[in-house]
């Protein structure tokens, strides 16, 4: 399919007025997208751990049931951790949303096609795993309702947002993992986090 949505516009729309939202950004393009939308201490961008973004989101969601948690990741990253959709489907955290920005490509390694380019339907997988809501978004009209769902709708919510396969500039978050961890914990838990 030839998607028209631009990935950076999707990240901008979903992270607008993010307020108390806790965000995990999957490695590669989605981490750059979230940084382009505005580097934030309550975003944990991954530089590795491919396949683990959704599980980090589950850990956050279980530990902070009063906060909304959003995982934004790519189709290649999600495909590497498909089992985590089953684990989340069993746990059913109402405060967790997983959004896959799906360009049907491995963007960091030469734009090779992922399985979603060949018909693998991630929303159908999430639905079959027990997510409360799972949808595929293909137009800009779907972004505002998705953003509202991320903030309000009992989950777990899943959305695959189909975007154009475009190669765009890198907007890099800090690289130091210990720094990214410490700033997230401080922003969420206060300075007491340093003494934990």
């Amino acid at each position: 399919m030839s998607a028209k949505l631009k990935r950076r516009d999707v990240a901008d729309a979903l992270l607008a007025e993010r307020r108390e939202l806790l965000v995990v950004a999957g490695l590669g393009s989605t981490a750059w997208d979230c940084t382009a939308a505005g580097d934030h201490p309550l975003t944990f961008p991954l530089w590795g751990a491919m396949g683990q973004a959704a599980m980090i989101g589950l850990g956050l969601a279980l530990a902070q049931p009063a906060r909304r948690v959003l995982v934004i990741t790519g189709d290649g990253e999600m495909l590497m951790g498909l089992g985590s959709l089953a684990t989340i489907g069993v746990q059913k955290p109402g405060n967790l949303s997983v959004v896959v920005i799906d360009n049907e490509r491995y963007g960091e390694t030469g734009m090779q096609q992922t399985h979603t380019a060949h018909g693998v339907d991630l929303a159908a997988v999430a639905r079959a795993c027990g997510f409360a809501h799972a949808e595929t978004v293909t137009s800009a009209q779907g972004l505002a309702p998705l953003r509202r769902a991320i903030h309000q709708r009992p989950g777990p919510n899943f959305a695959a947002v189909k975007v154009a396969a475009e190669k765009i500039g890198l907007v890099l978050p800090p690289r130091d993992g210990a720094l990214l961890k410490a700033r997230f914990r401080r922003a969420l838990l206060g300075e007491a986090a340093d003494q934990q």
Partner: protein
Amino acid sequence: MTPDWPLEIHRTLSAAGVRLVGYVPDAGHKRLIELCHADGTMHAVTLTTEEEGIGLATGGWLAGERSVLLMQSSGVGNIINVLGTVRECRIPLPMLVTMRGEHGEFNPWQVPMGQATPAVLESMGVVVHRVHDAGQLGTAVDAALRLAYASYAAVAVLISQRIIGIKSFQEQAGQ
């Protein structure tokens, strides 16, 4: 008399304030898993692969909760790459690993990973504590938790097959 080591470990986890328990089921951890599920202060999460437990623990620690990962030695092979994240981000990660492929193993397919387990963990920067005596497990787990949380380190307690004592397929099936 054999000490009730799963109960001792559960008490130790509880006293340390562990709230998230990720696990891939293992016969050696059967009773501890049941104790964690029955504990209203703990969230026991069944995983499809041990790797998911590293993500769970990372997210939990970002949000201020202590976790532990329970698995069999074969699972160590599934977490090698993501142990790099734990080290880079300095996530406290205690792991309790029931050993296979060592003391009296009956399944030859368990032997390669079981024999490689300590070296694999150490090569990724994990502190390894080996325990061969059930009477020392409670103390060893307590020490591992203290080290992991005080030092923001990954620490594995390898629970010897001698303690678990499964000698045959029939015994395992009867667990």
